[in-house]
């Protein structure tokens, strides 16, 4: 299978967020419409729905194009993605007023408060989640599609 490797990389990269998105939509419908929780989830869902799958897909294409030069493993390459995603997501969330920055921490959806002491472990955990997902899930998909 030698045709269109970048198309296959795009599809493999978009696989994980595309699978998780229906779960998020289900949670959104249950929380917002069934339980009538007064959080503005619909504003927050724009980022994971519109940008994250495409960024995962493009990041996998970038790995395919650059791995011969950089020699980065797929896991480490994926672990770098939150360095790009988190500022973008925080910027979008701030402009949509679902993230407010306070003196002792940040508050999501006017409900979830994250103190600054917790931001570093949460960020490191996010890096670890990305590393594991890219190494085992995206790596498996790349091997299955014949591009790794």
């Amino acid at each position, binding site marked *: 299978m030698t045709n269109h490797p970048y198309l296959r990389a795009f599809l493999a990269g978009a696989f994980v967020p595309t699978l998780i998105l229906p779960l998020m939509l289900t949670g959104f419908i249950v929380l917002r419409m069934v339980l009538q929780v007064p959080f503005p989830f619909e504003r927050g869902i724009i980022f994971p729905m519109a940008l994250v799958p495409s960024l995962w897909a493009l990041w996998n294409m970038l790995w395919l194009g650059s791995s011969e030069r950089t020699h980065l493993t797929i896991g480490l390459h994926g672990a770098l993605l939150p360095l790009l*995603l988190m500022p973008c997501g925080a910027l979008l969330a701030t402009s949509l007023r679902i993230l407010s920055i306070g003196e002792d921490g940040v508050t999501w959806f006017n409900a979830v408060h994250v103190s600054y002491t917790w931001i570093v472990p949460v960020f490191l955990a996010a890096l670890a989640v990305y590393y*594991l997902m890219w190494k085992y899930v995206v790596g498996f998909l790349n091997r299955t599609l014949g591009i790794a």
Partner: protein
Amino acid sequence: MNTRDTDRLKTLLQAALPPTRDDLPPRDLWPELRQRIASAPASPAPVSIPWFDWALAGGVALVAVAFPAAVPLFFYYL
């Protein structure tokens, strides 16, 4: 349709379809295929996960338990 038409139709069909050639392989391929099927592993080799990855997964679980509010934030970035 009389016999003459039938013969003409037969001639036309034989002229339209190329004659088949005897393209049999020089030897019987079935034993080789059976040998390949028999030698293939029944299940794929199990993925070996290094201790470092287990430690990372444990750390993630620890953060999720100690700070459950982080879980929806993870989903926000997935």
